[in-house]
């Protein structure tokens, strides 16, 4: 009998909280992290009788920007919808979300040559935070109404490694766009993979398992690997895994059942009557597209093709927007500074990258200082040995005490003498060579 093949099919739902100044539908600050409970609230985000939502323009722009970065089509006509369910963290009894006309659809991301299709990018509001305290549950409405972007991929992943890689890349992009901290620990980026296993190439799986409450990329990988193993075992017994939502236990590294399909909600979506539909004109979309920074993918290409970096090094430097900006500034200014130097460094880009990656020079220095140090390392000064020897003679004669100390074995004395010589040379000498000459002269005596 032929061994069956088991191919994991994985899709992702990613929530990203935008770091706009104010919340999605009211004027309260959206910067809720670490703030005392229920201090960032108003009638709107508390869902008080009569209160109405007014959409945050910036949040809409940023969602469009995310859509554009993921090469999506932007729906020229979009709208908000009400998604109904009862939960204490949802003060209105519905969440304002987007249903059938999300802001962006049909994008893709190039993951090492593999195309990951983006199904949709939509905008909604975050819920309040429930804090379970013994028998009681406390509700903190500071988070209620914070703008939340949901990015949904098609089920285009087949391994947890690809998922992890994609998520890391996505996090970097979001941070480049400067629209969110995308911080997993703070909850400003949240992940929900859905996993199923295909047994025959031509058939799509009849079920889907969604895993919630994962707060690190490592755990996503663990959860997916666990699910692949669990589901494969069930399939090997000729059974079909339950369609369900599962949670993830970090300590055990296992998923556990949370909600079966039969309990699935009917959200009774309908167009939010309090917010007129959104109409985007080409001019407006172009204006937003102009806000798009150069993204890591393009930077890598530029670094490799134009600056001569190795792919791996270009990749490392572009992981952080600030670091790559720093690198680019150093690179540009380095050429200015070294114009007059005779000895040219061969591969400046790669050499500077090496200094950064290997931490030869700290990147928290001002750019000017970094360059000075880089020049010292990359373009050694020419030392006039004869001039050094003349200076050494002069210093030895003038500092008999230090010479005596040196001879009695005091290392500090040598450092002092080197310093004196360097002063004579006005810095135009390599300290290492000066040291050698002093030792040589004094050794002879």
């Amino acid at each position: 009998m032929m061994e069956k093949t088991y191919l994991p099919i994985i899709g992702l739902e990613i929530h990203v909280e935008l770091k706009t100044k104010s919340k999605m539908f009211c004027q309260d600050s959206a910067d809720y992290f670490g703030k005392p409970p229920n201090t960032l609230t108003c009638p709107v985000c508390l869902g008080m009788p009569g209160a109405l939502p007014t959409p945050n323009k910036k949040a809409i722009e940023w969602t469009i920007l995310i859509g554009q970065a993921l090469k999506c089509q932007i729906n020229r006509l979009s709208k908000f919808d009400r998604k109904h369910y009862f939960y204490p963290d949802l003060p209105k009894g519905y969440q304002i979300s987007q249903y059938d006309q999300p802001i962006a659809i049909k994008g893709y991301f190039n993951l090492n040559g593999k195309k990951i299709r983006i199904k949709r990018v939509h905008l909604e509001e975050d819920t309040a935070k429930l804090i379970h305290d013994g028998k009681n549950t406390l509700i903190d409405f500071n988070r209620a109404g914070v703008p939340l972007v949901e990015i949904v991929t098609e089920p285009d992943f087949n391994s947890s490694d690809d998922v992890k890689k994609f998520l890391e890349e996505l996090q970097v992009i979001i941070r480049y766009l400067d629209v969110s901290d995308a911080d997993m620990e703070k909850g400003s980026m949240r992940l929900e993979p859905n996993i199923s296993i295909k047994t025959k190439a031509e058939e799509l799986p009849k079920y889907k398992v969604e895993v919630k409450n994962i707060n690190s990329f490592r755990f996503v990988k663990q959860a997916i690997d666990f699910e692949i193993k669990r589901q494969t075992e069930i399939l090997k017994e000729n059974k079909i895994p339950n369609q369900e939502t599962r949670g993830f236990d970090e300590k055990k590294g296992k998923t556990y059942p949370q909600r079966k399909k039969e309990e699935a909600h009917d959200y009774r979506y309908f167009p939010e009557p309090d917010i007129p539909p959104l109409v985007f004109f080409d001019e407006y979309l172009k204006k937003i597209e102009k806000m798009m920074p150069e993204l890591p993918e393009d930077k890598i290409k530029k670094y490799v093709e134009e600056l001569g970096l190795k792919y791996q090094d270009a990749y490392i430097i572009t992981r952080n927007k600030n670091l790559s900006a720093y690198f680019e500034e150093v690179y540009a200014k380095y050429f200015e500074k070294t114009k007059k130097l005779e000895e040219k460094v061969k591969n400046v880009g790669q050499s500077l990258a090496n200094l950064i990656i290997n931490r030869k020079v700290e990147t928290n220095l001002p750019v000017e200082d970094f360059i000075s140090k880089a020049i010292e390392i990359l373009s050694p000064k020419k030392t006039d040995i004869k001039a050094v020897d003349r200076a050494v003679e002069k210093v030895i004669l003038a500092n008999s005490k230090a010479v005596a100390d040196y001879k009695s074995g005091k290392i500090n004395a040598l450092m002092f003498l080197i310093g004196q010589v360097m002063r004579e040379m006005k810095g135009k000498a390599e300290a290492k060579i000066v040291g050698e000459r002093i030792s040589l002269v004094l050794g002879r005596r």
Partner: protein
Amino acid sequence: MEIFGKSVIELRQLVKKKKISPREIYEYFQKRIEKYNPKLNAYITKADFEDKNVEGLLVGIPLSFKDNFCTKGIRTTASSKVLYDFVPPYDATVVSKIKQEGAAIIGKTNMDAWAHGSSTETSDFGPTKNPWNLERSPGGSSGGATASVSAYLSPASIGSETAGSIRQPASWSGVIGLKPTYGRVSRYGVIAMGSSLDCPGPITLTVEDAALILKIIAGHDPYDATSSRYPVPDYQTSLKKGGSFTIGITDEYFEGVDEDVKVKIEEAIKIFKRLGHKIKKIKLIPPKYAISVYTIIQRAEVSSNLARYDGIRYGNNRSYLGSEAKRRIMLGTYTLSYGYYDAYYKKAQKVRTLIKEDFSRAFKDVDVIISPTTPMTALKLGEFEKYPFFGEAMDVLNEPAAVAGLPAISIPVGLDSKKLPVGMQIMARSFNEEAILNLAYQFEKETNFFDVIKKGLNNYRD
């Protein structure tokens, strides 16, 4: 100083000339409320006088507000026990605009619970009585508001309409009720019923008072994304411009209307002719189709808007909802459920578009359309239980304009054989409140509404 029966503008003049103080006016109405409210049940919450030091168009004027307007520090219940002790921490935009002009809140008026009804009988605070006949309903849902004006327990009131809730009780109570264009007046802070339909509006003794109040409350509100940026004209000036209009009349709006009512409307039409206006017969989609559209959309929005009263925050839980609210929630929930949305809600929206287009077409030929406000005059209390869709039947002639978002006013045009007021409505295209007010004002100058308002007041002269 005689205060009785004075309009807002007249009272304002007295205050301006320092013939009377704001406190004296306030206490005058407080005393009247003490005396008459136990009989009428127009108010469910009374407010206290606050000395204010502001300049404005309404300094010294006490106004009543329907109890679905959030009033900071004053209990706001929407006449439902669910919100029995809810004291809002904020003012509705309309309330703050009125306050900014120096007006004082005299009290909160009774209404159908959550504005679900057309008789004020679904109120958890008991029904309001019609000042014209205590055995009859004042109409609803703004019945407390229209009764408060009709019996002069406030010189004017702010009500709200989803489909008929200003015009119908204004008609039954014999006062003026103006429903502005959807989006003309901010809904912020008005406890939502049908969000795509709700409109706050004034209930007054004179057309000019309605124009003045509309001028104050209209305009874009940054807190209401559906409020319009269309400029606000000076309604008070424009209503006196005169001029002649082409008035549309349509048979569809006279079907099933009481003979008594028809006669009064026909008399009014003669007066308009005499005033030099052109009367033109037009065709419109029969109003009964608006009922279906309205019922589906409003119930769906109600089921969603009432979801927040989940028992976690506002004291009383959902078991305190009345049977009318429960019925509406069930129907709305059903029509929004998976698999039914297209058949009901989406289809209703399509028909809604047709009705809007129908009106747009009609308004190419005419400036305004007139019709009876209601098919019959005030019914006896308790009648509503005989009709499963009582509100829809009473508001049948109000629903098309509501569904299309158009402005309309109801004015008294006489009394029927039962000595009850008859109302006529004037509808216009969106944001053409000026035409409505102008025409109503001309009618008022010509007829003084056949003294209907005056007769109503005189029953409560002390």
